[in-house]
């Protein structure tokens, strides 16, 4: 190390750091972390949306098929054609009706529907935030600061 230059550089004034700079950086890191988590969730829910959208028509088909196989609607229409008999033995009728219900297909259909609606709801709510942040970063193209 050149002593004369070291002595010279000892005179170099340090620029004053802005107040609360460390806190600002830590806050920025926290924001970035939240943004990253949100982005990961959006990827997860986008895959969920694509999967549930693709699975929806077959699930609906399976449900329709299961209802027609179980003759559920035949039993159900008795409610309109033979109402008095049904009222007289409503407990047996209800039990038979429940017995005919294609539970597995219904569960499959509703879980896909829930996944579809849940993903849509999440994406509609959060995609806007992601796009706004990205747009903000693009327009304030120094480095994308908060």
């Amino acid at each position: 190390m050149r002593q004369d230059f070291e002595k010279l550089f000892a005179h170099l004034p340090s620029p004053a750091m802005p107040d609360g700079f460390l806190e600002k950086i830590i806050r920025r890191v926290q924001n970035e972390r939240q943004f990253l988590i949100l982005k990961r969730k959006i990827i997860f829910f986008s895959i969920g949306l694509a999967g549930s959208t693709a699975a929806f028509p077959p699930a609906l088909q399976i449900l329709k098929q299961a209802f027609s196989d179980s003759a559920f609607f035949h039993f159900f229409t008795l409610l309109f054609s033979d109402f008095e008999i049904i009222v007289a033995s409503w407990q047996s009728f209800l039990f038979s009706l429940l017995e005919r219900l294609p539970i597995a297909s219904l569960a499959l259909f509703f879980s896909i529907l829930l996944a579809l609606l849940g993903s849509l709801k999440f994406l509609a709510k959060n995609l806007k935030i992601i796009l706004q942040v990205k747009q903000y970063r693009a327009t304030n193209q120094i480095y994308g600061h908060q």
Partner: protein
Amino acid sequence: MPEISDQKLISLYLAGDEKSLEILFNRYLKMIYSFIYRYVGDQEAAEDVAQEVFVKVWKNLKKFNPRKNRFANFKLRRQKNFKTWLFKIAKNASIDFLRKKKIIPFSSFDNEDGNALTDTLADPAPLPDALLERQDLANLLTRALAKISFKYRAVLLLRYNNHFTFREIAESLGEPLNTIKSRHRRALIILKKILGKSSF
């Protein structure tokens, strides 16, 4: 109490200790801010770039910890020293910023008569005492540094302001050790010449 090493702080942070990141960042904050400020020459810009640097560091901390992550990027695995890695990011971020701002690296000194001068690779003679005793030395030095091109300025700042070894400078700037040594010598010559011109 002995100071906790950078590597240890990183490991602690990755294990869930948030405070370690603050300690680690605080350790280098002033150094990095000053380094960037000397590069970009503007307080607001330096603040922006420094923030970006620390965010980048945070994003890559997992990859930096080579013992924990076998799949880490090869370049990062080779990087052993957190300090030099941090300065490397700072240098690159500053250059990116200047490129985006379309501030072309320009040194009037290099372009006018720098070539003839930098061909001479002998160490410059010691600085005159009269220069070191000048009242306006801080101002003179600041102005002189602003005139030197980025690559020379970085070497001088890392060497004499941050007290880096040549090896650390080479690692920070991503250049071979011998290149840094000769660049350092040239930088001294250039700085001395500018100071000599400005003194009178």
